[in-house]
């Protein structure tokens, strides 16, 4: 054997595994190599998973993307055994796509994600792990830490953007025997996954942030409330907690100080509203997750009636970096009122989907078109959905909006937790609005009448419009209901539920009118309102005929194909698979 002293890390995050990394790991385990075989989390490049990183004995790193079993055989032969990397397959961060992806990113939250083995506390420690906690405990001045976090300008990444340092100061001020901290890992926005990825790929960063949060607010007990759909995140957290306890970063008298902190994990049970802080606390208490009126705010009376500080995963993972590098360094990044970096989950019609972390202040266009590479097809970006069910659709002509809490709010969307779903002309905006109302209607806890019944009425109207039964008055009624629901709901769920409808009405009103008046869905999504036709551009490649689930397409090889309108179910598969843009919606 020629090649010795290698380190091989296989991406074993949920997304990597979905892309097939488990088979690669199993294959490598069978090959008796003189190498340290380990795992890593998600690098954020979900479009090019699974990934394997090989570190040669001399320290040279090679990252292989989109590895499949066949590719792996060649990597084993030439690189792992032969000692020469397969140059043609190496990810290059300095040129081409790699450079476009990385140049404008700045990694603070994701600093270790995909870099270290998330199951190893030693790897975290080797990357300045728990240094911030040491600094904080040595200084032993909670209010000083609150000030530092306040000066850094860090705002809550869970959606509302409240200044984190201020929240901590409120809790510290409370003179009570018992206080709690909570990490909100409920990640409810269906389309956002940065919290999952951070918990899976760098759990200690969140634990360190939480321990500092507890120290700074005077709490000695904490809960991580994690979504039920994230089993791997829970497993990694449990392991990380056990490791930290063993090494004295958690538990009694942390690092020999007088500060003690105990941490529990609570798994959610599948209710979006439990991401809302008061509902989340009710859920930890074993109740139905119903929000309650604030005040009293959690800082005064939260979990079990005690002062409680609740923060999002990404907020907490930023904290150790801020302590280590200083508030000024963090505050130097971003805009006047939005500091630091924000992680976005890029998905939808996008070439390079995944997680990206960018400095505040860059434009949505830079994120979507430069970093994400645009739609990756001949189609143009039509809109970007931000903020999930509470957010809205920002149209293509506003893509130069900067990533800044206030500027995004001005468009009618919100920063939210950082879901960014890119939509192109094949997406029907009325259908998107209907989709979100379907979601909020289902997830409304039912406490407020307008949220419970109003969202249902809005959903009925939108469903009617999509089915082709809309009437002109529908639009006015949607707008009226939207205002009523916003004004009469107790929590953020209801207050923001109409946003997807309001923003699509603001920017894509014409599409609503076409559905209602012309009975047309230009995107080809609403089956009653469109039909598909194959144009002369057809080369007769037969792909669409093979893919059609109902056998509605016929034609000779190399001849123009035809769709049988009687059989066609308007699923749009033919358009999706056509490489020649020959399938048209009429």
């Amino acid at each position, binding site marked *: 054997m020629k090649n010795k002293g290698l380190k091989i890390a296989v991406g074993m995050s949920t997304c990597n595994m*979905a892309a097939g990394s488990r088979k690669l790991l199993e294959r490598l385990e069978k090959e008796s190599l003189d190498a340290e075989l380990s795992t890593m989390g998600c690098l954020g490049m979900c479009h090019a998973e699974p990934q394997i990183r090989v570190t040669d004995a001399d320290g040279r790193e090679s990252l292989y993307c989109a590895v499949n079993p066949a590719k792996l055989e060649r990597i084993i032969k030439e690189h792992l055994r032969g000692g020469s990397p397969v140059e043609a397959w190496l990810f290059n961060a300095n040129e081409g796509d790699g450079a476009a992806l990385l140049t404008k990113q700045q990694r603070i939250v994701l600093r270790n994600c995909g870099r270290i083995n998330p199951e190893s506390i030693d790897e975290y420690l080797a990357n300045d792990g728990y240094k911030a906690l040491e600094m904080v405990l040595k200084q032993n001045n909670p209010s000083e830490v609150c000030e530092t976090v306040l000066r850094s300008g860090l705002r809550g990444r869970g959606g509302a953007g409240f200044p984190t340092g201020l929240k901590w100061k409120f809790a510290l001020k409370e003179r009570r025997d018992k206080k709690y901290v909570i990490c909100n890992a409920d990640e409810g926005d269906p389309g956002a996954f940065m919290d999952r990825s951070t918990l899976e790929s760098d759990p200690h960063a969140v634990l360190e942030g939480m321990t500092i949060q507890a120290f700074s607010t005077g709490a000695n007990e904490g809960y991580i409330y994690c979504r039920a759909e994230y089993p791997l995140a829970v497993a990694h957290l449990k392991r990380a907690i056990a490791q930290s306890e063993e090494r004295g970063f958690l538990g009694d008298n942390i690092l020999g100080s007088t500060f003690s902190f105990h941490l529990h994990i609570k798994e959610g*049970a599948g209710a979006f509203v439990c991401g809302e802080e008061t509902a989340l606390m009710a859920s930890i208490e074993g109740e139905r997750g119903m929000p309650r009126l604030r005040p009293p705010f959690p800082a005064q009376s939260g979990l079990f009636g005690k002062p409680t500080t609740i923060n999002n995963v990404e907020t907490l993972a930023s904290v150790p970096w801020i302590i280590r590098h200083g508030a000024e360094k963090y505050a130097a990044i971003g805009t006047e009122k939005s500091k630091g970096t924000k992680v976005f989950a890029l998905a939808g019609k*996008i070439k390079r989907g995944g997680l990206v972390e960018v400095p505040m202040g860059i434009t949505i266009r830079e994120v979507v078109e430069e970093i994400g590479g645009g739609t990756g097809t001949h189609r143009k970006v039509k809109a970007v959905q931000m903020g999930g069910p509470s957010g809205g659709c920002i149209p293509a002509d506003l893509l130069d909006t900067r990533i800044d809490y206030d500027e995004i709010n001005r468009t009618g969307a919100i920063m939210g937790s950082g879901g960014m779903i890119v939509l192109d002309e094949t997406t029907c905006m009325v259908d998107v609005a209907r989709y979100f109302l379907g979601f909020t209607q289902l997830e409304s806890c039912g406490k407020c009448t307008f949220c419970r019944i109003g969202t249902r009425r809005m959903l009925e109207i939108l469903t009617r419009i999509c089915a082709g039964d809309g009437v002109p008055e529908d639009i006015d009624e949607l707008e009226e209901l939207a205002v009523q629901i916003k004004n009469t709901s107790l929590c953020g769920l209801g207050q923001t539920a109409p946003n997807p409808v309001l923003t699509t009405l603001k920017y894509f009103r014409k599409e609503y009118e076409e559905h209602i008046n012309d009975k047309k869905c230009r995107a080809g999504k609403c089956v009653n309102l469109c039909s598909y036709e194959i144009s002369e551009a057809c080369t007769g490649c037969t792909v669409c005929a093979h893919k059609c689930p109902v056998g509605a397409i016929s034609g000779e090889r190399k001849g123009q194909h035809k769709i049988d309108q009687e059989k066609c179910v308007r699923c*749009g598969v033919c358009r999706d698979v056509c490489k020649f843009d020959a399938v048209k919606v009429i």
Partner: protein
Amino acid sequence: MCGVNMGCVCDIKKSVDEMIERVGSSVEMAIPLLQAVQSKFRYIPKEAIEHIASKTEMTETKLYGVATFYSQFRLEPVGETIIRVCHGTACHVAGAEGVTEALEKRMGIKDGETTADGKYTLESVACLGCCSLAPVVSVDGEIHAKVDRGSAVELIEEREKA
């Protein structure tokens, strides 16, 4: 113990006793207890709720209140294999409705139902956190990426063969 059948009442009672012992019996443990029950029996049998109510401070009303609020909990038995189609935003715009439709057709059931032979349950879920690989389907917890109508049906066909 009175037999091999897992659903037998005394077996349920015995398991639930163990869970109460392990998880705790205070009111705030309602959700973790029900989660333990479900992870063992794959749904929440009526007898388990009755038994928890008889052994702890929690009433049946309280337990049903919790069990019906959270979408994770099922009060009916499920199929051997659970197929969950993601209907999060990214999966929706990538065609998740078509995937569910194709699976419904192949299995002869509607979303949320279990096949008559008890083999499969088809469910929708709000997001599996792999949005860049949409549409996503999980089969017994294993996540499959970039699924379409055809490959979704193949997932079942492969299992049938195996």
